[in-house]
């Protein structure tokens, strides 16, 4: 009996799961400075609601642009920055609470928990004012790979672009693959640590153990304490806002206050007296480099298409015969030959579900057997 389909047995189909990682390098020049038209950064999208800023890898009006991350700031009611008289105070409170609600959750009384410096929600210091970097799913895919995150941030005086700063710290999730937390409703997260990488005596604690924020791997969100731009004597904002920079440093001259202004504002002044977008602009200028690896969870089904020696040796290709005579044979005792270029995977009702193509024809005759391994990823 002639046939052209072969049914899979249970031994011919196997399912597997693979984790794929891609390196995602983001240079500071893309985040700030590459795409400028006059005074406008064309790859930065600000919204009329003013609650966050979107960063693209190309002018966002172009269809070629990809969204890479959003940036915003916020503080909670426990922060001394919170004051109804401050600029966009309600929005800054709302943003903090929204992020905390999603990433930290609620306590047993239903109150939104604050971001905790070390992940121990029952005690210890809280991050009451924060910078949020929300990376797009295009970059993070299923999750950020633990232990791969690195952010180089300029913390020196002045308002130049990050690359020209002589004082930089590197923020990493060092050893997070072995040391991460699971008490967040948004999945795994770990603590971010800062270390001086350019310049000396930058940090009050320069041992590499200085906690500066949290990274939520599944959510693709980085939460940085605003203390990274404050020195350790900044006590007037309350204990939680004591800076991490060495006492020899002054509060970073965070950004220029208004067009044409010659003076600079510190971070507390900017967070309280300026719009969210202005703070976002200043933070972006201080980003020198971001890199991480993303993770894609690949679920695969592998189909082993086995062609035995006595199978698939003839073809229904119209060129296979000439006046019904098989072209690759001279006499009937010659071996039939066929050439495989395509594998078709069918449902039981003969509908073509998937197609696989070989990069070159494979010769099939009664003297050989072939197993073609077709993998479908989901």
């Amino acid at each position, binding site marked *: 009996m*002639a*046939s*052209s*389909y*072969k049914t*899979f047995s249970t031994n011919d189909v196997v399912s597997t799961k693979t984790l794929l990682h891609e390196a995602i390098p983001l240079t500071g020049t893309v985040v700030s400075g590459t795409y400028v038209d006059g005074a406008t950064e064309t790859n930065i999208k600000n919204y009329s609601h003013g609650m966050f800023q979107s960063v693209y890898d190309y002018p966002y009006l172009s269809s070629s642009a990809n969204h890479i991350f959003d940036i915003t700031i916020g503080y909670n009611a426990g922060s001394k920055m919170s004051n109804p008289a401050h600029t966009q105070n309600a929005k800054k409170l709302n943003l903090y609470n929204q992020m905390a609600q999603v990433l930290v959750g609620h306590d047993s009384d239903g109150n939104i928990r604050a971001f905790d410096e070390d992940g121990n929600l029952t005690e210890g210091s809280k991050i009451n004012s924060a910078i949020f970097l929300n990376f797009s799913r295009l970059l993070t895919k299923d999750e950020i790979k633990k232990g791969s995150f690195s952010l180089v941030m300029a913390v020196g005086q002045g308002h130049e672009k990050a690359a020209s700063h002589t004082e930089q710290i590197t923020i990493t999730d060092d050893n997070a693959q072995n040391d991460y937390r699971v008490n967040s409703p948004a999945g795994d997260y770990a603590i971010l640590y800062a270390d001086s990488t350019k310049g000396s005596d930058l940090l009050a604690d320069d041992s590499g153990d200085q906690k500066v924020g949290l990274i939520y791997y599944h959510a693709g969100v980085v939460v940085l304490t605003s203390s990274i731009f404050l020195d350790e004597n900044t006590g007037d904002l309350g204990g939680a806002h004591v800076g991490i920079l060495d006492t020899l440093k002054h509060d970073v001259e965070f950004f220029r206050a208004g067009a044409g202004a010659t003076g600079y504002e510190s971070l507390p002044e900017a967070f309280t007296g300026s719009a969210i977008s202005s703070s976002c602009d200043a933070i972006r200028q201080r980003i020198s480099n971001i890199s991480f690896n993303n993770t894609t969870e690949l679920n695969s*089904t592998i*189909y082993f*298409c086995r*062609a035995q020696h*006595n199978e*698939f*040796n*003839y*073809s*229904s*290709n*119209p060129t296979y*015969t000439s*006046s*019904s*005579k*098989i*072209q*690759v044979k001279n006499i*009937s*005792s010659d*071996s*039939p*030959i066929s*050439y*495989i*270029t*395509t*594998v*078709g*995977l*069918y*449902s*039981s*009702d*003969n*509908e*073509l*579900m*998937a*197609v*696989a*193509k*070989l*990069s*070159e*024809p*494979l010769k*099939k005759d*009664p003297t050989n057997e072939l197993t*073609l*391994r077709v*993998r*479908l990823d989901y």
Partner: protein
Amino acid sequence: MGFLDNSGDILLDAVLTDTGRMRLAKGDGSFKIAKFCLADDEINYGLYDKTHASGSAYYDLEILQTPVMEAFTNNASSVKHRLISISRTNLLYLPVIKLNTNGDRADHSCGVHGASTVHVVAVDSDTETGLSATDTTAGIGVLPGETITNEDSCILVEEGLDTTEISFSYAIDSDLNESQYIVEMDNRLGSLISFTGTSVTVSYIDDDNIASYYLSSTTHGTTMINSLGTTAIDGCSIAGPRGTSLKFKVKASLELNTSQYLFEQVGDTLYYLNTLATATATTGYAEGTNEYRVIDSNIRITGATTGASINVPIRYAKKVKS
């Protein structure tokens, strides 16, 4: 689609078809891969050079260098020519499916339309009258698409070994005898009906509006599939041992019957005059001149057992002006 890189290791480029993705999206369990086939769509076996001066190692040199295109996601465009498993290795002849265009075939009017050289489906009664569809002499090759009767023309394909090396009086081997056919056609244009005018249940209509009809000799009987036997048949297109024949008609779709929309969208831009004998780019002929619009399409017939296949060209015609 581009060609696959064939400079190094052999790669396998796999994609889900549009139908596969549709079933996956349904989430009702209908996406289940149960079987596979192998195919050789790109191969031209005419390049197999059995007389190559350098010996047998060079016979298939050109075939093995055939560049292979990336996989199509359109299920209707892929896996056209399947490889066949036959346990015997001593076959020298394989069956083919041939369109019988002999107008004098003993018991059927199955010739093609003279001016069009293909089968023509008259999509409404006006067109049937204009093309003399019910006249098996004047309207040879014209299938009435609206008023189906038992006497009309049909499309006839025959399966067997089309060779003069073996006499038709020899019975075809049982494993080469086709008993099931798959007919695929554009469901927007028409549907399959039996020779006697009975509707045939469509098995499946895919996302590209290609309807598939699965026909077997056991369920569709002698009104569609017949054994050709070993005795002489006038006008038979198969020269050697014969398997079966498949005959059918086409009923025009309601849309073709009642509207010119598809003729404008996928039809020929030319207007055909006087029994489709001449074509012109413009309309506006004087009253009394028959004027038609046409859509050219294909009906694909595949033998489910042997894998042999044929594309039957078909022309849907609609009279748009008297």
